C-alpha cells in the first residue's frame, strides 16, 4: 500500500502506517486525516507532536494507557482521559494518532 502526499508516493504497511518514519512531514498527517474525513485542529496537533517527541525519545509508540497519563501531565489534566482522546481520534488515539504521526503501530493494547 502507499499514500500520495504532495505528489510523492510514500510506502505504507497494509494498515496504512508509514513504512519509513523519515518520510513523514506535516502534510502526511493532513492527507491521512482528509482520507478519514477529519479536520486537524491544534488539539490534534498537540497529540501528534507529543507522539513524535515520545517516539524520538524512547524509540517506541506509547501504549494508550501511557499516552493518556502523559498527555494529562504534559498537555493538561483535563485532557488526560480516554474520552477526550477518543473525541479527537475516533478510531482510537493509539492507532489513529500514531498513524498520522508517521509512527509504527503501537505495541500492545491500543
Amino acid at each position, binding site marked *: 500500500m502507499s499514500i500520495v502526499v504532495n505528489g510523492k508516493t510514500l510506502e505504507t504497511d497494509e494498515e496504512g502506517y508509514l513504512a519509513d518514519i523519515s518520510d513523514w512531514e506535516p502534510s502526511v498527517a493532513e492527507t491521512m486525516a482528509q482520507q478519514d474525513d477529519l479536520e486537524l485542529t491544534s488539539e490534534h496537533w498537540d497529540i501528534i507532536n507529543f507522539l513524535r517527541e*515520545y517516539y524520538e*525519545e*524512547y*524509540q*517506541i509508540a*506509547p*501504549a494508550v*494507557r*501511557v499516552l493518556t*497519563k*502523559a498527555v*494529562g*501531565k504534559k498537555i493538561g489534566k483535563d485532557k488526560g482521559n480516554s474520552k477526550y482522546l477518543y473525541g479527537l481520534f475516533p478510531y482510537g488515539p493509539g492507532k489513529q494518532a500514531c498513524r498520522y504521526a508517521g509512527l509504527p503501530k503501537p*505495541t*500492545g*493494547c491500543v
Partner: protein
Amino acid sequence: MPTSKKFMYLNRRAPYGTIYAWESLEVVLIGAAFDQEVSLMFADDGVYQLVKGSDPSEAEMKNFLATYRTLGDYGVRHMFVHQASLEARGLTQADLIEVAWEDLDTEQEVDNIVEVVDTDQAACLIAESEVVFSF
C-alpha cells in the same frame, strides 16, 4: 477486587546477538496493561542490556536502549542488576542507564529504579516472585 501477582522478567542474554532481549522488553510493555507488580532482573550477559551509550547501528539492529527508560511509565517498579555479573564484565552501576519512575496519581517519584543486588538478594527476589519469565 482484582488481584495482582508479582511478575519477574529475568534477562540473561546480551542485547543484540539474539532476539531475546527485545522480545522480553516487548512482553514487559504488553504485560503492563494488566496492572501487575512487575520487576526486571538482569544477570549474566543480560547486564549489557542496560549499558549506556551502546550503539548497534552497524549490526543493523534497532537500538532499543532508550526504550528501557520508559519502563517506569509502564508500571515497572524495580530493575535489579546482579552485582557479580556486572563485576565479572568490568562494569559498575555508573556504566548503566538510569530509569525514573513516577506515580502520576500520588506524585510519588523515584529518580532511579535500577538497583544493583548481590547474589543472595537476587535469588531471594526471584524466589518470592509468583511468575518468572526467563529470557
